[in-house]
């Protein structure tokens, strides 16, 4: 990540989303989330940070994604699937939006980030995803990954629950 030197803004996000540069937009999204929670140094978001990310930031990001993707990508698109199709189960959600390699439990480990589908053909709710993939090596290992983030890891979709809870709380504001 090249977040250290560059201050990203919503205009950058606008620009990238407008050009359908979904992967780059996803990176900017993570950068904005890190900046909002003052976790640039750590470079990843834990539950505590997600539970306290300002509602305003969350809403802004969501609106940008939803607008440029016609409702395909964004947090509220994810929330809809999470609630209606997955019974609020984060792992079921991951399979539903094809974040995992296969739908069966046996091969239900997460894809490597580069193998996600960065186009409008991706399933509903597929993006944004990078914030969810960036994990420290110890968390990655604990889940059976190889220390490079979420790729190849099983289970522990806790972070996603945290984000959905945060979104729900922000909506009841």
């Amino acid at each position: 990540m090249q977040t250290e030197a560059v201050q990203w803004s919503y205009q950058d996000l606008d620009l990238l989303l407008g050009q359908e540069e979904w992967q780059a937009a996803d990176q900017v999204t993570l950068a904005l989330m890190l900046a909002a929670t003052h976790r640039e140094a750590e470079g990843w978001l834990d539950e505590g940070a997600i539970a306290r990310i300002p509602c305003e930031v969350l809403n802004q990001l969501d609106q940008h994604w939803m607008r440029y993707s016609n409702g395909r990508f964004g947090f509220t698109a994810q929330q809809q699937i999470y609630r209606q199709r997955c019974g609020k189960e984060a792992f079921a959600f991951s399979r539903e939006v094809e974040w995992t390699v296969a739908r069966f439990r046996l091969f239900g480990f997460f894809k490597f980030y580069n193998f996600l589908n960065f186009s409008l053909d991706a399933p509903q709710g597929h993006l944004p995803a990078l914030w969810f993939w960036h994990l420290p090596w110890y968390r990655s290992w604990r889940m059976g990954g190889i220390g490079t983030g979420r790729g190849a890891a099983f289970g522990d979709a806790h972070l996603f629950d945290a984000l959905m809870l945060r979104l729900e709380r922000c909506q009841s504001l």
Partner: protein
Amino acid sequence: MTQAYPGAAVGAIVGATDAIAKVVVQWVDAALDVHDRDGEVRLLGDRLQKLGMLPAARITYLKETADTQHCLGLQVTITEPEQIRVCLRLLYDRLLESPLECRLQILLRAVRLQLQTRNGEDLLVLPNAIETLLPARQIFQARAEAYALQGGEHSPVEKTNLELLRYRLNLPQEEADYLISRALGPYLDRQAKLRKYREVLTAELDRGNPLSEATWAELRTLYQSLGLTPADASAIDEENITRFQLDTTQVQAPEPKEPGENSGGASELPPTAPMAPPPPLPPLPDYSDRYRQEFAEAIAHTLYPSEFDRGRLEQARRLWELAPDSVQVMEQDITAERYGPIDSAQGVDYRRLRQLLWSGQWEMADQETERLLLTALSPDMGPLDSETLVQLPCLDLHTLDALWRRYSQDRFGFKAQYLVYCQVQQRADEFLQTVAWQQGISIANVNVLTRRKAYRDLQFDLAAPVGHLPSWRWGCEALEQEYAVSEGLVDALFAHVEKCMPDLSPPPPSPLAA
């Protein structure tokens, strides 16, 4: 012509052949939203109906489309000229109460009068303008009836006025006489009417004293249709009742008040009582207690009084001339008494929580509790930690606890949780297991293994362990995979409970905990 009004075609116009006019009232004020407008329309409609002068079918509610609930306005089909005056009078009263821009249209055959105003005074010029447009016979009859309702007979000046009106309208003498005698009814002059009323009252009192409320209502109808004023009637009532030398204090309301709305247009003029010297009116009884009782009955079995009860109460409030504000306070007090107080030091509205608990929706109530605590304590809805939690005012803590306790028979609530906490010698981990938020295996009082539950695996019913609810989801960062309450939070909350409920001194360690 009616096609020009949205929805006029929907409410099929009453095809009465005797219709002489139509009055269309629409609220057009920009400050009104759909619901408020609907409320205004319905209020006016109800009041019109309450007068009893118009059959229900004469009032048509205008809607945008057939399937919407909300009315734009209403249309009244008029068969008697006096009804126009009554409609205008009601609208005038309403505009004085709440001056909102409304559009009034009166359709008299080919003529259309239209007025858009928020000022009730503007309406007062209309009746005279309309009079010239109506058939002569009906105008004369209306005037004669209006006079007859004031004092029960035609005074000399009224007679002269009628004579002038007859001349102006070019009405034959015999027809005028017929209309006058019809207006006055079987008892021609005021004395005869007073006599009749006295007779009836004495007969009723002979049958039984005190009179029942139903009888009083009938008597009220009687003197109203005789055209007597309430003052006349109450004078006779007094006289007779004192003659009977009987205690009248239990008798409800010998109608000492102007029945403001019931007499419609006639109430504009001061009552003329030239004959009987008006005795001092009995003091206005205080109807607050009565209203209190009525309201308590209405909510005795339900937190939401039915539409019917609400209407009835509103009617009673008007009849008894109670101010809306004081009634609201009264209602809040009674509801608090019956369903638990909802006081807050921070202006938090606990009504929804109360409703959810009352209706036994435990999971929703649990979420609402979180929402209330977060709105009160955490400006951006972030989860609460030990430091923010202690800022919860004791009053709010009490309210929350009392509501949960009331509807769970002391099973749920902070107090129940605190008692559990005391039972387990104030050990946070033991507490979490006893209220079944965690499962664990402990060896020699030391937890060796804990397994957290998911939030959705909590038990949302009255069979749950004591203290199981409300959950402390407001302290959690994530819920669905595991509902994890930190032990620090347990100690912090209970320290705060101890502070707020000092009378809850920890009981001596009970043998249960051992």
